[in-house]
């Protein structure tokens, strides 16, 4: 190039070409689902990865997260094209759409239908579906908080598929031993760093059902002293220690909050990264959202025990409590 002698130019052009080409060729289709991972969703993930598009990447986002069409193909997400209806499971909808020729996939589809859509009406598929449900329950029961590694589900469906292919009954598979360690697999780790966004009404129902919900107030101690959700612990991001993380691991859900959940979300994400799988923020966000529903708040004039009792009463009658607010 006359008049242009910068020696780094060729390297720059080469680097740009490599960057552009790698980006162009590595573009695989992304499928997105919520982290309410039911058997139908696991079966759908297996179907996509093993029989529809082997190069597809699956992204698991928190329940309630908005998924835009440009993000990828959403399934088992409210409002998506592939979402469980009264007549079809997500797995069956995927089968209908992609039309794979394999009859064994249709058989598994009939199990999913019996399990998810028609559990009260006995069909030919019912015994197999119940056996599959037992296998999944057994698998989940062997992992803390029912978080079995995703590879285990993939292995389970592969084993079932092989049994079908060799004309064997799936009842011969009485116990499924997953070879993957109980520590978080990479896929699960990526899923676990995500933070759930739970509606407050749902949280109240969980509290009423006896689940241990720990509220973590991420605001400054001065703000905490003014008002907070009864029973909440005050913990800022800078004070997060391994001991405190360990103490939170006993909870069924750890709900971080601040005024509008900017700081709360950072904390929830930090907790998820430190192995707290049920880390969440609430909807509507933060103490502002909590107060907008006129739910009880612990004020300086009130004792913690009284405020907690008030919150428990509200949780027991959450419908009335929330109705009164609206």
């Amino acid at each position, binding site marked *: 190039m006359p008049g242009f002698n910068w020696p780094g130019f060729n390297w720059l052009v080469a680097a740009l070409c490599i960057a552009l080409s790698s980006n162009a060729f590595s573009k695989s289709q992304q499928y*997105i689902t919520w982290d309410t991972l039911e058997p139908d969703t696991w079966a759908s993930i297996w179907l996509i990865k093993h029989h529809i598009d082997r190069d597809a990447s699956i*992204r698991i*986002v*928190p329940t309630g*997260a*908005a*998924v*835009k069409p440009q*993000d990828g193909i959403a399934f088992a997400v409210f409002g998506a094209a592939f979402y469980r209806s009264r007549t079809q499971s997500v797995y069956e909808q995927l089968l209908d759409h992609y039309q794979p020729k394999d009859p064994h996939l249709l058989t598994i589809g009939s199990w999913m239908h019996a399990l998810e859509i028609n559990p009260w009406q006995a069909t030919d598929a019912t015994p197999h579906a119940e056996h599959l449900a037992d296998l999944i329950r057994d698998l989940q029961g062997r992992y803390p908080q029912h978080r079995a590694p995703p590879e285990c589900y993939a292995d389970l469906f592969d084993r079932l598929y092989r049994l079908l292919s060799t004309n064997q009954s799936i009842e011969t598979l009485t116990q499924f031993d997953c070879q993957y360690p109980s520590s978080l697999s990479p896929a699960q780790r990526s899923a676990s760093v*995500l*933070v759930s*966004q739970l509606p407050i009404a749902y949280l109240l129902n969980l509290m009423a059902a006896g689940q241990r919900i720990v509220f973590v107030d991420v*605001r*400054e101690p*001065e*703000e905490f002293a*003014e008002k907070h959700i009864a029973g909440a612990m005050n913990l*800022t*991001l*800078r004070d997060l220690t391994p001991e405190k993380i360990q103490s939170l691991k006993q909870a069924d859900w750890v709900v971080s909050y601040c*005024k*509008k*959940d*900017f*700081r709360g*979300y*950072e*904390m929830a*994400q*930090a907790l998820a*990264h430190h192995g707290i799988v049920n880390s969440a*923020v609430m909807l509507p*966000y933060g103490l*502002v959202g909590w107060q907008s529903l006129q739910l009880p708040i612990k004020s300086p004039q009130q004792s913690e025990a009284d405020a907690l009792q008030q919150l428990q009463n509200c949780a027991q009658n959450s419908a009335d409590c929330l109705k009164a607010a609206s």
Partner: protein
Amino acid sequence: MKDALLMKNARMIKSALFMQRLQIFLVIVLFMAWAACIYQLPGIDWHSIGLPAGQNYYRFSKFAALTAILLMSLQVCSGFLKKRGHAVLGSSVLLCTLTHYLSFFYAVNLRQGHLPNFLLWPWPVNEYYNGALTIGWLSLLMLIVMAISGACRHLWPRIMRVLHHTWLAMVVGAILHSAMIGGEMQSLAGRCFYLAILLNMMLASFQRYAKPLSKYFPILIPLRATSV
């Protein structure tokens, strides 16, 4: 011997190289302080899936705030040392502070789904948080007044000079706002950041006033070359 050592230390602290190193340290600690108050740095995907609305704008707002504080300290130093670039630095402070305010405003707007009116005119209504917001907001107003007084200093020199000298209240307000709800100040990196800023400003004031004081305290030797 002891006096010679003290003189050597005083010279080292006042040297231009020391100031440069301190300012490089400040930039590094700025990023560390930012990382201490947010858990994950914003990704390239500005509207990441699953992220609550406005979260990335909030993170960006934090960064703009810390940058504004850093530039503000350099601006104070340039004022003390009567250096060139005072106007450019001042404009940068204003730009960063407005970016901080507007990105936080937009983040809250996205999060709530409606305009956050309380950010347009915050008032301390029996709440620690609102008090902190009000202090920050008043500092922003003072900063705007200061920018105007700096730009229009030829119109009414005496009035503008007095207005421009409210910088101390503005800096105190900004740091107080940051200390109250910034969150980063209690972290180690945050404390290092604010201490380095104070040290930077103290050194600059020291260099400004060392010469008049040196006749009373011989150890205070004014600098020949400084940098900001």
